[in-house]
């Protein structure tokens, strides 16, 4: 007859009477394996989710922004102080048209402030500096297309600077007035691109078309 020595519970009792509890028979390793597999699966799932989120983080941000952007933005007031309402780029030979037609309507009637190189360019400065600086501080740029304009180098420079304005700020910052029809003449690429990018306003020589012309001009300058 055999007597147990340990554990203390079963001391001095016979082996025949040994009745282990159920949990004592299960091997510890098995339960550990089960728990381990469970935890491992959980971790795997987490890792998968983390990987997906990492790979698609920009898409997720984009979706969130789109949801937020359903509200319209308020347009902020302009940070730059504009000195002039419009810069008038014209050839010297067209100055009479500017002085007799544009100035009375825009400056005297509508109280806008125009930049005209005969009046507002400081002598002694570089011409290029004057052009670039004044276009920068003008709200809009008016290009007066004529045969003289497209043949003059400084006028082309003004057109190129205006074109850069379009790239930076959009096509609404430049207005083209067609004084003479130059569409069917060979012109510089910049002029051609400008004509394609912006709708121009044609100047009518007869007086009946004038109110319409001025109305269109004013709309474009808003």
């Amino acid at each position, binding site marked *: 007859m055999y007597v147990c020595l340990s554990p203390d519970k079963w001391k001095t009792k016979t082996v025949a009477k040994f009745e282990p509890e159920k949990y004592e028979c299960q091997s510890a390793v098995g339960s550990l394996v089960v728990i381990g597999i469970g935890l491992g699966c959980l971790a795997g799932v987490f890792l998968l989710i983390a990987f997906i989120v990492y790979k698609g983080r920009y898409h997720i941000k984009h979706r969130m922004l789109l949801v937020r952007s359903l509200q319209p933005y308020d347009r902020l007031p302009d940070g730059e102080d504009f000195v002039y309402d419009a810069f008038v780029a014209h050839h*010297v030979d067209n*100055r*009479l048209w500017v*002085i007799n037609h544009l100035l009375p309507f825009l400056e005297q009637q509508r109280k806008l402030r125009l930049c005209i*190189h*005969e*009046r*507002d*360019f*400081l*002598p*002694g*400065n*570089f*011409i*290029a*500096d*004057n052009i670039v600086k004044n276009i920068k501080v003008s709200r809009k740029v008016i290009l007066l297309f004529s045969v003289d304009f497209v043949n003059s180098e400084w006028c082309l420079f003004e057109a190129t600077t205006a074109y850069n304005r379009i790239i930076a700020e959009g096509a609404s910052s430049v207005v083209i007035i067609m004084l003479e029809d130059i569409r069917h003449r060979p012109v510089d690429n910049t002029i051609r691109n400008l004509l394609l990018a912006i709708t121009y306003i044609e100047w009518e020589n007869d007086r009946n078309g004038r109110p319409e012309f001025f109305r269109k001009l004013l709309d474009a300058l808003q």
Partner: protein
Amino acid sequence: MPDNKITKEYGKRCEVKHNYDAYVSHGSSDRDRQFVRMLANILEQEPFNFHLFLPDENLIDKDNNSIISETIKHKCNRLLLVMSKDYAVDKMSDFTVNVALDIPNCRRDRKIIPVIIDRQCGLPVMINHLTSADFTIPEALTWVLPRLCAALRAPISKPSQIKRRTT
């Protein structure tokens, strides 16, 4: 306090004590002199009160190029170049422009102010990229004088304020 008396030069050294607002470089024809006289009358009176250096009146030795250079460089703030068809072929116009040309600082200081009194007379090549005060455009005559005065009045930076690049 600059006074309005005509200051003459004696000998080789310049005895002029005040700084002039501009050296007026112009041709020797009567028409040019008349124009310069008229312009000086306007600019030296109220309300402008500019102090102009007129070679006809202020220079005794007109052939002494070194005195002219010294005056333009050190005694006058700017060069007022009155360009006409006659002066365009005169070597003096090129000379005064070359003396006054200060390439490192010309962009900031506006040292040369071209004034045009003849249509289609070109500016010297060295300054044909500068905006000029054009007296030949009748529609712009009311504007040209204020522009000229604004250009003459602008401050010049002193040489000590100019940073020199050291390599």
